[in-house]
């Protein structure tokens, strides 16, 4: 029997039991849809985080306290600057979410207390006015440099320089406006108000820093420098591992590990649901073989060989599983798009995951359809013709 003929017969069988076929495909639909959606979500989320890390710039070290009891201060930043020659710049920062107000406009953004070195370390560019100076930091001046997004949201494109902003109830004068850096994979480095780090600490009533950024003069020195920085802090706190010193590579590595764990988990979920779907297919195919025992007997009587019957039933199982796969791909893509909209990352359903799901759906069809098809192909023609 030709393949086309086998497909025709299988299609007729699948169509003649629409409801049953639909219910059987559900397992595969759910399996495939969850793979597509979850893979897309994990890709989108990890791309967003990766983008945030990459936006830091290369040759960057990020020093953070391991927990809330550990305090990093401006003195720590200064001592790193003077004692570690491999660092070309050190940028302490104290940041929090705050509301900036101008007239009746108000906008919630990231308030970051920083030092003059920040503009260089983070690759910002001042288009109007100036950045924060050493004197601003020393004298705790209430001045602010605003990012491009804040300019748009708060000042709606009007002249911002020299205007008075209110941040958490305190007045700040805008002395500079930054050039647009542009979205980096979902994060917005332009959604920020920079103020002197000392002013930020006073506003928050603390002497802590949230983070110290440090730029290496050369990437080759990373390992040694990280070790040296660790020693300095070990000595200061009198015990090891009170701060986290991470290079961009390490951060990316951490995200990568997390992503891989996530992928493995998703693979597990997908595997289980496809397994369940496959069992459903096997079950319905066994029913189908039993129901059509007499048909099989007759086909054999008029000359069908084992492989003719095998092909017919395998194709039937494949139709169910691949049909489910296709519906699952559509449903999963839809779901991924919706979730991405809420998550704020760009949804990308990768061609890889579509191919993979399609392939798996097919494999499930063949894998779980094989036993019933073999069973059908081995039926004895006379016994089958007598079957009631």
């Amino acid at each position, binding site marked *: 029997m030709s393949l086309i003929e086998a497909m025709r017969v299988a299609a*007729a069988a699948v169509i003649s039991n629409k409801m049953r076929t639909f219910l059987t495909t559900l397992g595969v639909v759910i399996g495939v849809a969850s793979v597509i959606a979850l893979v897309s979500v994990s890709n989108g989320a990890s791309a967003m985080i990766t983008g945030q890390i990459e936006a830091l710039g290369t040759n960057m070290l990020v020093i953070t306290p391991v927990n809330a009891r550990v305090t990093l201060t401006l003195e720590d930043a200064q001592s790193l600057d003077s004692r570690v020659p491999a660092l070309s710049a050190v940028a302490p920062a104290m940041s929090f979410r705050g509301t900036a107000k101008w007239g009746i406009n108000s906008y919630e953004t990231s308030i970051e207390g920083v030092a003059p070195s920040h503009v260089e370390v983070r690759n910002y560019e001042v288009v109007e006015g100036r950045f924060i100076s050493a004197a601003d930091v020393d004298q705790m001046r209430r001045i602010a440099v605003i990012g491009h997004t804040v300019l748009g949201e708060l000042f709606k494109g009007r002249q911002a320089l020299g205007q008075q902003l209110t941040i958490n109830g305190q007045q700040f004068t805008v002395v500079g406006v930054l050039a647009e850096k542009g979205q980096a994979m979902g994060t917005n480095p332009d959604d920020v108000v920079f103020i002197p780090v000392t002013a930020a600490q006073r506003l928050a009533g603390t002497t802590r820093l949230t983070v110290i950024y440090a730029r290496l003069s050369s990437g080759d020195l990373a390992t040694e420098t990280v070790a040296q920085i660790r020693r300095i802090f070990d000595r200061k706190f009198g015990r090891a591992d009170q701060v986290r010193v991470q290079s961009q590579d390490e951060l990316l590595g951490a995200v990568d590990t997390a992503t891989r764990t996530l992928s493995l988990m998703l693979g597990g979920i997908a595997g289980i649901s496809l397994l369940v779907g496959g069992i459903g297919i096997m079950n319905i195919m066994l029913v189908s073989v039993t129901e059509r025992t007499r*048909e099989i007997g007759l*086909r054999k009587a*008029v*000359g069908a*060989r*084992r492989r003719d019957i095998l092909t017919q039933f395998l194709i039937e199982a494949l139709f169910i599983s691949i049909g489910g796969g296709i519906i699952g791909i559509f449903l999963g893509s839809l779901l991924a798009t919706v979730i991405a909209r809420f998550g704020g990352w760009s949804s990308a359903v990768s061609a890889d995951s579509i191919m993979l799901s399609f392939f798996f759906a097919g494999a499930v069809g063949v894998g779980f359809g094989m036993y019933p098809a073999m069973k059908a192909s081995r039926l004895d023609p006379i016994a089958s013709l007598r079957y009631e």
Partner: protein
Amino acid sequence: MIELSGISKVYGIDRLVHALRRIDLKVGAGEYVALMGPSGSGKSTLMNIIGCLDRPTAGTYLLEGGTVSTMDDDQLAQVRNRMAGFVFQTFNLLARQTAERNVELPLIYRGVPGPERQRLAMEVLERVGLTEWAMHQPNQLSGGQQQRVAIARALVGRPRFLLADEPTGNLDSRSGQEVMVLFEELNREGMAVMLVTHDERIAHHAGRIIKLLDGRVVSDELNPAPLDATAELERIREQAHTAASAGAGTAAAGMADPPGMADTRGGPV
């Protein structure tokens, strides 16, 4: 053409049932054979072995000089496809497929391309007088029509012989007789026909009558004066006509005509 020697068939493992005991039988090309015998005497078993649907437990079966008894499943399938045409008591048509598609079936497994299949199927459907019914599904046909579709299916591959196991068993006498007319015509054209029946009258259409008992051939005789199937059909029609015009009630008419009435056990697969 068909040559059985020492054919036995034993069923069961613990309690053995000897369905056939050392049967020797030759059937030549173009013969018309009726197989009779009480229930359980082994008629169907013998037909299945001759039709290559089943293998004997012992003995050799030569078909056109080829040894069937040693063939594997796929070879048997091919022999069935090319040599034998089966007609069953219960028609065994595929439901939800048109008569024409049902008739095509043996050709599908022979790899005949679609248009050619349709042409051949329509040809045999015309031969059995069902051209107008070609696009109908089995459940839209009477029992007699269904059996004629089944005969068309058996004929479409131009087999060497036709095997019919109680082909009239589920039909009223008139539809049954129509089937017998077909067999007679086919046999005149040179087709070997073997049929199983319980009905002496049906059996007497054949040129040779074989009787089985407990798996043995107890008589194998030529029928010197076979019944003329067409004349028989005429007689049955007349009977029905007289019964109807005499207003003899429903009993006699029921015996003769309405299609579907006798169609209780038979039906689509």
